[in-house]
């Protein structure tokens, strides 16, 4: 199997702080690989190293066989990077933006013109191509932001949390775009902290936490890591601290965590464990106001691996 992206022992330190610690993962040609993890996990730092923005402290990575350290220009030429924030010139039109970014990838003349036309068609902005990007809605800007990375038909597209802070409709549009790009044969490296997106899009998922890759595999492979465990989300009529320590000691509870007024527990058998949780709550004079039992998912995996919820 040929790898479009190979990451080998990649490290990045900022002084004493180790943002990325010995990261190893691979993305085969034509697949979608998601880097899943909470904010601050090191996803963006990893992406920044792969796209040439940051120099690794040690280790290396190859994009389409080109080392990011030894052949950075070749590696970059194979990449299309979609930044997390909109990175466009607001006082230039959509077309002018695409023409400029196309030139930066070495496109010229009729090839550039036809690629700009094609991309404008793909992102659905042909009729607004002469308007300044600054006048566009957030969703339209996102589409131009993605389009600028596709002009040179890259082998690998890196998308750094492209759905942060946008409406559900635009989010759906972007997710569909990712699938379409992948169907065209592009390898997509997608970072997100939304486990639903990773589950929907990815062939492989690398879960990151505190600068480390803590799990890597397909969605099903990762789910199997938690075995038959079930996730239970509970809300209370009072603060979680009152009951958390009692529930941690309850038989059948393997992991428990609280965040944003919600308690998430990983249990062996919800039918057996739930009555015990209610008993303990009753003794502590705490009333449970809602219960949500979920089949194992990536959130469960993350909780299983770290003892914390992904949203923390």
């Amino acid at each position, binding site marked *: 199997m040929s790898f479009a992206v190979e990451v080998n022992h990649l490290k990045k330190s900022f002084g004493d702080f180790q943002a990325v610690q010995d990261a190893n993962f691979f993305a085969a040609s034509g697949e979608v690989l998601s880097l899943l993890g909470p904010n601050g996990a090191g996803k963006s730092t990893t992406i920044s190293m792969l796209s040439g923005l940051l120099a690794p402290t040690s280790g290396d990575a190859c994009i389409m066989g080109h080392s990011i350290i030894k052949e950075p220009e070749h590696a970059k030429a194979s990449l299309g*990077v979609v930044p997390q924030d909109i990175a*466009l010139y607001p006082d230039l039109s959509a077309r002018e933006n695409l023409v400029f970014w196309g030139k930066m990838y070495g496109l010229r003349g009729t090839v550039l013109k036809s690629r700009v036309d094609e991309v404008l068609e793909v992102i659905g902005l042909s009729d607004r191509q002469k308007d300044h990007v600054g006048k566009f809605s957030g969703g339209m800007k996102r589409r131009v932001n993605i389009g600028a990375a596709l002009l040179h038909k890259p082998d690998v597209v890196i998308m750094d949390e492209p759905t942060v802070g946008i409406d559900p409709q635009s989010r759906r549009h972007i997710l569909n775009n990712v699938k379409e790009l992948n169907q065209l044969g592009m390898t997509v490296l997608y970072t997100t902290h939304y486990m639903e997106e990773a589950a929907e899009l990815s062939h492989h998922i690398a879960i990151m936490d505190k600068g480390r890759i803590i799990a890597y595999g397909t969605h099903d492979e990762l789910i199997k890591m938690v075995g038959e465990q079930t996730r239970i989300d509970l809300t209370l009529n009072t603060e979680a601290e009152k009951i958390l320590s009692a529930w941690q000691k309850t038989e059948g509870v393997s992991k428990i965590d609280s965040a944003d007024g919600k308690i998430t527990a990983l249990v062996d058998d919800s039918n057996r464990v739930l009555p015990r949780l209610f008993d303990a709550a009753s003794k502590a004079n705490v009333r449970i106001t809602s219960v949500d039992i979920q089949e194992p998912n990536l959130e469960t995996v993350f909780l299983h691996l770290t003892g914390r919820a992904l949203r923390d």
Partner: protein
Amino acid sequence: MKILDIAFKDLTRSFRSAFAIGMMVIAPLMLTGLIYFAFGGGSNDSPSMPAIKVGFVNLDVLPAESPLDAPLGDNIRSMFFDESVESWITATDYVNETSARAALDKQEIGIAVIVPQNFTERYLSGNQDVQVLIISDPTLSIGPDVVENMVTMMVDGVAGGGIALETIMERSQANGIEPDPVQFPVWIQRFGDWYADFQRNLFHHPDKAAFVVVAPSAGETETANPIQKVLGLTMAGQMIFFAFFTGAYSMMSILREDEEGTLARLFTTPTDRTSILTGKFLSVFITVILQGLVLMVAGHYAFGIIWGEFSGVALALTGQVIAATGLGVLLIAFVKNTRQGGPVLGGGLTALGMLGGLFTANIPNAMPAAMNMIANFTPQGWVLKAWRMVMDGQSFGDLLLPFAVLVAMGAMMFTVGAMMFRRRFA
């Protein structure tokens, strides 16, 4: 090629910014325009002081047995009707004070000059009470002073003539020679002619004056109108100030791109960082050149400014561009973000401009010697010096010194700034 693409993109953005255009071109033209209109520009092809309208009443008569050929009143009158002043003084004769006052009330004239009856006789006899009456429109400021000075100079000249005559007589008698009274009118006439020429030349040809403080170099191109020279220096001062502002403001695009995220995105493309920085420097350089050319052409056609010989202008403009780009790169290298940029550009460049003498360029000797010395440590001061030399018609060779200083200053500032940028974005 990518360097040009980046420079072109930056130029496009700059010239689409109303603020940038305002600061680059409109502000310096407007400030110079204020000076232009203050001097009555807009009514003629070339700017000049508004014409002074003088009404003249000459009641003087030549006393009997006077050694003079004509009464002094005629001499004073001749000054206002002389062809050498007709471009800025319009004089009209009136028969008496009443008619002159009536014309003044109707604003047909701005100033009335009345030489009283027997003025010559009383003046030559040493009468201290005799005086020429000058009545003026109270709303006028410059004109009455000019007229008063002209009359005073003429009367002083006559007094000087009297003193000269007495001296000749004394010295002749001391040497045992009795002066011939028949020669007195000849001497007085000769002195009067010389004095009239002297006054005329003093105004129109300062190089013929008795004391010439600065001897103009050979080949000096004289501006047709002194107001044009004032405007030229004003425009040069404004152009230099805003050129440096433009240099720094254009360079600030690198900080803006850093904040917009486009700089980081540029670094993810297969474009090396040297090309990216060079493209941005190039756009600053081109912007300052274009600004200078636009201002010079606009200044010439709008205000009639004569910048000087082409080779000298090219040298001064090149020096200005190099220095402005260099200082822009250096200043912005010290600035962390665009919010810091405003105060740094506003405060720093204004202070340097003041020290360089840009705001007093059109006022001779406005700066004390110590300040002139300090101006030599600012690039703005050297650019102003170069433009002053070009406008004074100094030779290409004379300009090489300020040009060399500007190139050295610009190169040094650019190198330090570029190194800091490379380190920051490494």
